[in-house]
């Protein structure tokens, strides 16, 4: 085998879509929706053919002049620009790139959040209505949370133009939040204005503020508020600690997420979400902080807390990966053997065999 083939053999498992349970559930929802839509289209098409056939028959059979003909009118769907490019998201939402320079970056798709950044250009967002999922667009430092189902955004050199075509949006810029209702437009300058025409209500409840920002997907702003000295400490409650950890992670401060996750494991081990906290901590240590030993311990903890949790299989596979990265080949092999015994048909069998040196 040539050297490039050796390398492909070695890196084969690295070409992995990262298909986890959350992505699977979202894709299944989209699949069911697509199936229903196609059934409706097929039914409508059959009905159209049937009616057209009836109309043709009616026109071609000699009938008294007074016999009525059936006329069916269809309203065509709203047409899209012919040169628009499409980005399909896993929850069924779409991003239409309406100008040639339009680009989508940093796409982050989770079960409870879809976040993306856009470059200069014009975009239309067709957003599937899901109350439990935030849809946040970053445009030149302006954060737009789409609450409705259609929003048009244009990022220019000096301003962001937002049109809430269907439903409302929240625009977060320069430390303030503006709401656009159905049919309203806004122009948001990219430079912080020296004089604001609209003064937002002064929210002195800092705890409520960072949580509200986070729940709307404004993680950068939420982290900024969280770190202010005047903000009270995050309360020792699982949901608040997990939310604070997400704020830290999604705003690009993974190390700041660690204490929150560790607090959940220290004080709330019996909470049903503790295993998820351990798993998330493992991912942060491994993927974002490059600390595989700590990651391995966290993944092991995730399984210890909830051995039958749906994440347990993935936690064990990642523990193998972590020990492998730490250079602990014996431990990696032991965990790999355990994985193969527990999950002989597991999704990560090949990956685990390679990392555990069991090939």
């Amino acid at each position, binding site marked *: 085998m040539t050297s490039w083939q050796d390398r*492909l*053999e070695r*890196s084969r498992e690295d070409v992995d879509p990262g*298909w986890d349970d959350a992505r699977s559930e979202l894709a299944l929802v989209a699949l069911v929706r697509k199936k229903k839509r196609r059934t409706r289209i097929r039914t409508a098409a059959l009905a159209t053919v049937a009616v057209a056939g009836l109309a043709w028959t009616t026109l071609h059979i000699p009938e008294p002049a007074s016999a009525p003909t059936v006329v069916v009118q269809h309203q065509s769907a709203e047409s899209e620009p012919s040169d628009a490019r499409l980005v399909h998201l896993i929850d069924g939402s779409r991003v239409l790139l309406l100008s040639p320079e339009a680009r989508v970056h940093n796409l982050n798709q989770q079960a409870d959040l879809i976040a993306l950044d856009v470059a200069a250009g014009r975009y239309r967002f067709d957003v599937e209505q899901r109350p439990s999922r935030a849809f946040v667009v970053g445009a030149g430092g302006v954060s737009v949370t789409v609450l409705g189902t259609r929003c048009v955004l244009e990022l220019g050199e000096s301003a962001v133009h937002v049109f809430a075509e269907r439903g409302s949006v929240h625009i977060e810029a320069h430390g303030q939040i503006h709401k656009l209702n159905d049919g309203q437009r806004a122009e948001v300058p990219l430079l912080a204005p020296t004089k604001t025409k609209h003064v937002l209500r002064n929210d002195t409840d800092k705890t409520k503020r960072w949580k509200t920002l986070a729940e709307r997907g404004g993680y950068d702003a939420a982290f900024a508020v969280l770190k202010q000295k005047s903000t009270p400490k995050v309360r020792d409650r699982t949901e608040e600690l997990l939310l604070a950890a997400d704020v830290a992670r999604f705003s690009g401060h993974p190390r700041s997420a660690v204490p929150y996750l560790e607090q959940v494991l220290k004080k709330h081990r019996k909470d049903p979400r503790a295993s998820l906290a351990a798993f998330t901590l493992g991912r942060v240590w*491994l*993927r974002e902080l490059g600390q595989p030993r700590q990651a391995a311990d966290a993944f092991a903890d995730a399984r210890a807390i909830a051995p039958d949790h749906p994440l347990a299989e993935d936690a064990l596979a990642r523990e193998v990966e972590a020990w492998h990265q730490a250079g602990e080949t014996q431990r990696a092999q032991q965990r790999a053997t355990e994985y193969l015994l527990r999950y002989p*048909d597991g999704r990560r069998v090949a990956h685990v065999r390679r990392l555990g040196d069991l090939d």
Partner: protein
Amino acid sequence: MTPAKKGRPHLYAVGVNDVPPVQPDDAPLTLDQAFRRFAPYVAAIGLRILGRNDEVDDLVQEVFLAAQRSLKELRQPGAIKGWLATVTVRLAGQRLRKRRLRSWLRLDDGFDYEDVAATTADPSDRLLLARIYAQLDRVPSKQRIAWTLRYIEGERLEHVALLCACSLATAKRRIAAAQAAVDRVLGDD
């Protein structure tokens, strides 16, 4: 092996990575059950053929929509995996052909394949994969798929031929043709 019905695809002919029956009574799987069990597998094949993770979700949905009608007809649920692999290869091929057409019409701006491999991969391996996938974008889809199945998915030649629904000789020819294109970027690798 039960002969296929006349005019129907040979659902039992593909034995790629067959798994034991998933249910004790060999009852056909529902779409939900099949999806939950095999979507990760389809996604992995899909990514390795397409090279673009943002296209994988659509492909997975299309595969199961196409396969759902046949799920009830499979008498050996253990053959579902192989059947899904065949459907995945076929639909991924359609996507690749559309992509080449869009590229020819200057509607596809290319793709940065640096992220096709996980961030934990060796950096030089990541670069190698990025270069290979960029080059594969210039190769006809049938050749690309055959080569990808052989060298990235790691399939045996006989299985490549099965999945591509072609003869062994044709599979070898396609792989060789794609290899000639890939060789240009491999250089001294």
